[in-house]
Structure formats: structure tokens, C-alpha cells
């Protein structure tokens, strides 16, 4: 390890498949560019001729911004391997320029942020950054063990299936050459957005045919979702009632979104751009073949439904 650089706008991660850069969705663009511009300088040797995969998450990237990234990379002797984005526009821009783009986000920056907070609350993390770069503040870098935990790994595997160039962020990947490092450098000023702070809409009613709820966050429905009714949420959907309509979790492309319900006989169930059709007209006649609390999630390319274990 020559040096450990710290960035506040992105998370660099070495994986079996190459280097992944997760760009924080709430970071200023000039700040992102500034930190991108010193990648090779911060990691001399390791980053020579490297090809980087970018996770832009929910961020909308303009053509100009995308070109700035590519220019910055080329000027450092680096290249772009492909991108992950939940935005169709962003993916289109990348594809038009000959880069591979897939729908989704890993949200590593957010996971790192949350882990950082937990670490801080428990024990002071072991100082690891031996020679911090000048602009790094006192905040020690996250320990190497800080990687996304189980919830993230499922989705990463499925991403890997559909686009093998996207690195799989698994435990062993930490041992690759690039030290994962991050730090919210403006701690105290900048409040990062965490997973568990995503807005949640709580509805206490029966959604009837023709009624549709669209929400940029999670949705909890305490009531039935009737055939012909629909919920479309950027995050997770929980239906505590009869689920007979259409649900679309991760509507903006978040592949980690799940659908949880106590009774499943939907017309159609969608997670990101994958879907699962209920049996035709069965919802009217048959009781749900599955009972107990059920969870639908993406497993590779397909939506799988499994019983949540009783605790």
C-alpha cells in the first residue's frame, strides 16, 4: 500500500473484476470532478492503465458531465469500463458513447457512510491511514473490513450475472490491491443520506381498481391492494393485506428493492425492470398458495418469492 487516499464524493473499491468507483449521489459535481482528477496521483502505480466501472446510482448525468469524467480519466491514463445507473438518460448517454451501462445501483457510498457512523458510535476505529493526503481531515479512514454486508451481496451477485464486468463486492475483494477508503471529510457539516432515512409513505386504506400510488421512497400499505390497483415505489413495498394488484418496487432501478406481504396473489409483481406474473385470474378464485410473511426479491434475472423465517 503506497498510500491511502480519502475521498468524500466517491468510494473506490477493488474487486475480483476490477475497480469500482461509487459516486455519492449527493456530492457536488465540481467536487466529484476534483477528486476524480487526482485518482492516479493518489494511487501511483496501482492505477496505471486501470479501467474503472462507475456506479452513479440515482444521479442524473448530463452528456457534458459524462464527457468530463471520460476526459479526466483519459488524461490520467485511465479508462472507463462501464457504468451502473438507475437513470435511463444516464445509461443512454453512456451507451451512445460505446460504454456498457446497466440498470441498478450498489449504493456502496451509502453503506460505507452508515458503517462509518456505527463504528464511530461503538469504538473509535483503529487509525489506518498512515500518510493521509493534505486535504484529509482528522477523521480516520474506515477500516478495511468495512464493506457492504449481507443485504448488498445478494444484489451484487445478480448484477455480476447480468454484466460480468461489474465487480462483485465481496469480502475477499478487499484484499485486492486498491485499498478501499472513504471518509465523510466534512463530518459535522455535511450530513450524509443513509439507507434507513429514505422517505416512507404509510397508507391505511384499501387501494381499489384504478387507484395508483407512485412514491419516490418506500411504501407501506395497511389494507388490501385490489386487482387493477397499483403501487409504484422507488424503494421497498410492504403490503399488510391482500396483495392482488400490481406492485413495482425499485421502480427507478434499485435492484435491491424487495416486496414484503402476508398474502400474495398479485396480478403482476415487478422489481426494477424484472417482473413476475401471477396466474391468470387466479386471484379471484384461489387463496394464496403461499402463506405466512413472504418476501419477493431479485435473484439474478428473476423475481423469487420466499417465506420469511419466523423469529
Amino acid at each position: 500500500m503506497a498510500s491511502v487516499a480519502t475521498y468524500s464524493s466517491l468510494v473506490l473499491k477493488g474487486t475480483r473484476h476490477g475497480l469500482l468507483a461509487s459516486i455519492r449521489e449527493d456530492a457536488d459535481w465540481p467536487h466529484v470532478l476534483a477528486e476524480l482528477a487526482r485518482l492516479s496521483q493518489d494511487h501511483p502505480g496501482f492505477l496505471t492503465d486501470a479501467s474503472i466501472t462507475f456506479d452513479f446510482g440515482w444521479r442524473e448525468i448530463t452528456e457534458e458531465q459524462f464527457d468530463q469524467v471520460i476526459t479526466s480519466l483519459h488524461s490520467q491514463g485511465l479508462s472507463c469500463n462501464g457504468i451502473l445507473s438507475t437513470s435511463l438518460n444516464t445509461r443512454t448517454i453512456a451507451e451512445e458513447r460505446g460504454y456498457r451501462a446497466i440498470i441498478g445501483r450498489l449504493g456502496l457510498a451509502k453503506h460505507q457512510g452508515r458503517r462509518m457512523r456505527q463504528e464511530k458510535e461503538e469504538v473509535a476505529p483503529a487509525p489506518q491511514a498512515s500518510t493521509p493526503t493534505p486535504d484529509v481531515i482528522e477523521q480516520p479512514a474506515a477500516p478495511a473490513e468495512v464493506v457492504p454486508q449481507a443485504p448488498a451481496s445478494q444484489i451484487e451477485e445478480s448484477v455480476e450475472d447480468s454484466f460480468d464486468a461489474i465487480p462483485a463486492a465481496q469480502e475477499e475483494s478487499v484484499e485486492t490491491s486498491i485499498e478501499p477508503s472513504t471518509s465523510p471529510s466534512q463530518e459535522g457539516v455535511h450530513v450524509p443520506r443513509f439507507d434507513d432515512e429514505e422517505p416512507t409513505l404509510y397508507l391505511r386504506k384499501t387501494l381499489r381498481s384504478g387507484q395508483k400510488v407512485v412514491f419516490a421512497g418506500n411504501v407501506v400499505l395497511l389494507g388490501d391492494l385490489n386487482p387493477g390497483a397499483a403501487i409504484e415505489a422507488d424503494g421497498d413495498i410492504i403490503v399488510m393485506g391482500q396483495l392482488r394488484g400490481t406492485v413495482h418496487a425499485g421502480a427507478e432501478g434499485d435492484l435491491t428493492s424487495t416486496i414484503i406481504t402476508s398474502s400474495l396473489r398479485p396480478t403482476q409483481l415487478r422489481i426494477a425492470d424484472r417482473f413476475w406474473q401471477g396466474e391468470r385470474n387466479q386471484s379471484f378464485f384461489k387463496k394464496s398458495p403461499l402463506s405466512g410473511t413472504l418476501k419477493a426479491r431479485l435473484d439474478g434475472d428473476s423475481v423469487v418469492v420466499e417465506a420469511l423465517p419466523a423469529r
Partner: protein
Amino acid sequence: MGKVIVVTSGKGGVGKTTATANIGAGLASQGHSVVLIDTDIGLRNLDLVLGLENRIVFDLVDVVEGKCRSFRQALIKDKRFENLHILASAQSREKDAVKPAQMKKLCTELKDAFDYIILDCPAGIEMGFKNAIAGADEAIVVTNPEVSAVRDADRIVGLLEAAEIDTIRLILNRVKPGLIQRGQMLSVEDVQDILSIELLGQVPEDERIVHSSNKGEPAILDGKSRAGMAYRNIVARILDPAVPMVSPQASIWAKLRRVFTADLGAQVG
């Protein structure tokens, strides 16, 4: 102070007009003053089912446009029932000839003069539907045990709830007990599982109702009609919610017929 009840369904042909005519006749025969309003402008039917077409002078549009002195001039009195009146729809106009605010005003006026104002709603969820529900206090949703009718009824219930009509009750029409027993038709439990609104009654499929509609005689007057019997039960439940439910199962119909001809039959007709 009267009560305004809209009879609606979403889907066409499920039996709204027949239900309106029979409930109106039933309520009137029990001594309540009743006005039936056909709000299906352009597709006038209610007067036919009651056999009153030849007596229409003024219609609903004339009333809201002030072409007659008051609504009383436009009301047609049914000679068979002392207390039954109908306000016919205009046949040569369109749905937008009446506005929701006008309907609301008319309903408010009628409430002072009558016990029950029953509105026969057109099919669909457009202007005619909005007019019909504008002045309504309660709703009766008529549906058939078919997936399409139930789906439309569910849509209607959602719209009624959005319009803050809180009392919404269900009539399941054209029930065929034999088909349900064979599992080929939705049962009342299947329908209620979806709609989850209070059931007012079930009406069995009855060939006699075709004949009575064509004659202009409400089925409720026909002592032999099974549908007429079901409507008598529905009327009894509108007046007293404690009246027990009748489920149209072939085996118990004979028994029910005895109960109802003894109970209500004397008062009807």
C-alpha cells in the same frame, strides 16, 4: 328530511335500472314517498321499465334548465303506487346538459319533499356518473358475479369513497346458485373478499324479470318471481338493516318463498 341513494355499477347491463325500479316500488309500497330519477341522459330507460313512457312531459334537463315551474311539474306519478314518482331523463340531449352542482341543488330540494330519492346512474365513470353521485348521501353498487363487473364495481367504490360517500352497499345480481356450487361462478364470498362493502342482498337470475321489465311491471309485484322476492328482502333491509340475509340457494328458496309471501307479500301490491 329524505335520503338520496344512487344506484350505480360502472359496468353496463348489470341491472341498475331494474334494481332502481324495484327498490323504488318496494319502498313506495311500504308507505314511503319516493322519487326515482333517471340520470342517464340520452339513454332513457327507467320510464320503460316502469311502463310510464307515454306520460313524460318534462324531463330532468327541463327541470335543471328551469323550463318548468318546479320539479313537481316534471314528476310522473305512478298510478300503481300512491307514493312513487319518477323524473325521466332527456332522450335527445347529452350528459353534459346537466352539471354536478345542478344535480346537488335538485337533490337538496327533493329531500325536503320526499323520504327517498333514488338516482339511476348511467354506466361508466364520466360526466353522467359525476352528476349522479353529486347529490347522493348513500350508494348502492350493483354488480354481477363476473370478474369484469366486479372489477368495475371496485373502481366505482373507490370513486365513491373519494367523493366521501361513506355508506356504500352491495347488490349482487344475476346469481346462479347452481354455477356457484360447481365452482364456475364467483360466490358472494369471492365478491365481498374483493369489494369488502356491506351486502344488501343477492338477486338470483330469473327469467321472469325479463318479462316483467318488458311489460313495464316491476318484478317486485310478481309474487312468483324469485328476483322479486329478493328485492322485497332488499327493501326490507334498506328500511331495517337487522333483517336477515337471504342467500339464493336452490334448496332453501322454497322455504324462503313461504317466509316472504307470509311476511311481506301481503303488503306488496
